[in-house]
């Protein structure tokens, strides 16, 4: 018990804190062509993902909602990661992210900053927090 708290130290780092306290692409996207709402009924976390598709490309994306550091940081980093990507690439990234946090698969370098959430795989109670925004994105892109 007590120090060192390696899994948590790894996870709750500066980068997660930054995204939690000042999430990127947070707010409403009035011109969105796709939107979906996600919710974790067991804990009350909510997220709405709004996507502006131009052809097959995610020209813009924003999210809003409320959640813990893990769910907010995951959503924030997700929007940065998929903005400008084609739908198929975004969905592929979603698969890679989920493989990392759900199955604990060795992370794909393509995940970039999202690798910061790798430690979630070791916290089964928190996996749903990390995947909420991604499931919502998949829903929006359906």
């Amino acid at each position, binding site marked *: 018990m007590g120090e060192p708290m390696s899994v*948590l130290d790894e996870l709750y780092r500066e980068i997660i804190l930054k995204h939690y306290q000042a999430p990127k692409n947070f707010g409403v996207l009035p011109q969105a062509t796709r939107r979906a709402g996600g919710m974790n009924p067991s804990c009350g976390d909510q997220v709405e993902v709004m996507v502006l598709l131009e052809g097959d490309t995610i020209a813009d994306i924003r999210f809003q909602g409320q959640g813990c550091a893990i769910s907010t940081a995951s959503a924030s980093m997700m929007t940065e990661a998929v903005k400008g990507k084609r739908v198929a690439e975004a969905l592929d990234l979603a698969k890679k992210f989920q493989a990392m946090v759900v199955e604990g698969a060795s992370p794909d370098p393509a995940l970039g900053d999202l690798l910061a959430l790798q430690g979630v795989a070791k916290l089964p109670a928190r996996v749903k927090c990390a995947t909420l925004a991604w499931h919502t994105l998949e829903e929006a892109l359906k």
Partner: protein
Amino acid sequence: MDLSALREDFPLIAKNPHLVYLDSAATSQKPKRVIEALKRFYEELNANVHRGAYRLSVAATEAYEEARRRVARFLKAEEREVIFVRNTTEAMNLVAYAWGLRNLKEGDEILVTEMEHHAGLVPWHLVAGLTGARVKAIPLTEEGRLDLSALDGLLSERTRVVSLVHMSNVLGTINPVAEIAQRAKAAGALVVVDGAQSAPHLPVDVKALGADFFALSGHKMLGPTGAGVLWGRYEVLEGMMPFLGGGEMIREVFVDRSTYAPPPGRFEAGTPPIAEAIALGEAAQYLMEVGMERVYAHDRALLDYALNRLEEVPHLRVYGPQGPDRGGVIPFTLGRLHAHDLATFLDEEGIAVRAGHHCAQPLHRRLGLAATARASFYLYNTKEEVDRFVEALLRIAHKYRAWL
């Protein structure tokens, strides 16, 4: 009130000296006696009940009915008023469907409170949707008590049911049920009490409460999961149609119709959770031997000690009323840390608390919070555990100060 010698009775606690279990409001740990009652049933008594053609079945039935007598003594009720169900949720649904569906009509009102657990709301929503009745709520004061000044304005001849939680599972508030029941009765309403938190932690006398129904979950009061109780006033039960139909609950069955057994059998369709009910009876017996006054005093002593010590933690905010009308439940937040992150940090320190809305979304909406962390105490918790809890929070508040 020192009950720490009892810790040895709880195998999970005895085997995990580093675990500080502060989530008894969700489910309690079980004493050895209860676990053994389950085992003993299957090893020595296993047979179906109320089909007594042979001695083993008679013995199983006797053990099951003895559990009913024990629960009746625990609630100061009559044995024939004790119905075994799965849990509080099922008990609330039983009342909503078996009583509400047949007695409510368009324009009728069901009065609940803003501090209900979802089990005290959703069954009424479902039945209101089918009958056209409306659900209204007694609001809360800033301190987290029911605002009884609003009661006269809310109670009318349209009010058919007042359904309320005895003790809040989030704020710990102990509601003045007897007073509310009296006013509800004067208005002609049925009174339904969600006793999921009060039955494990307070001395309960259902008749003195003036209620018509009282629901509890065995697993929150040292019993196993799968067995709970609905107590109902016999005159009310007697006038009700069954909730579920099937075996055991009948008097006579023809291919096109049936008549029903008297209560409580009328409301126990199918093979009941026999072993679980017997083990719940053992849990009730254990609590009666300890004494519910002592359990409440112990919880209260821990609550007062914890509330006092928690003032040391910077940025910590606790919710709920101050006063004797409060059980051993502490909802809290720490700065801008989300309750889930906080619970994860506490888990790392070996401290089990719950985080979220605790199945009370309207209450959290009222508090303006998406989620809280919640620590709850029971007879096996100690002052030393409160110290460990507070010290862990102090470390977390320091380590994650940038997050607060």
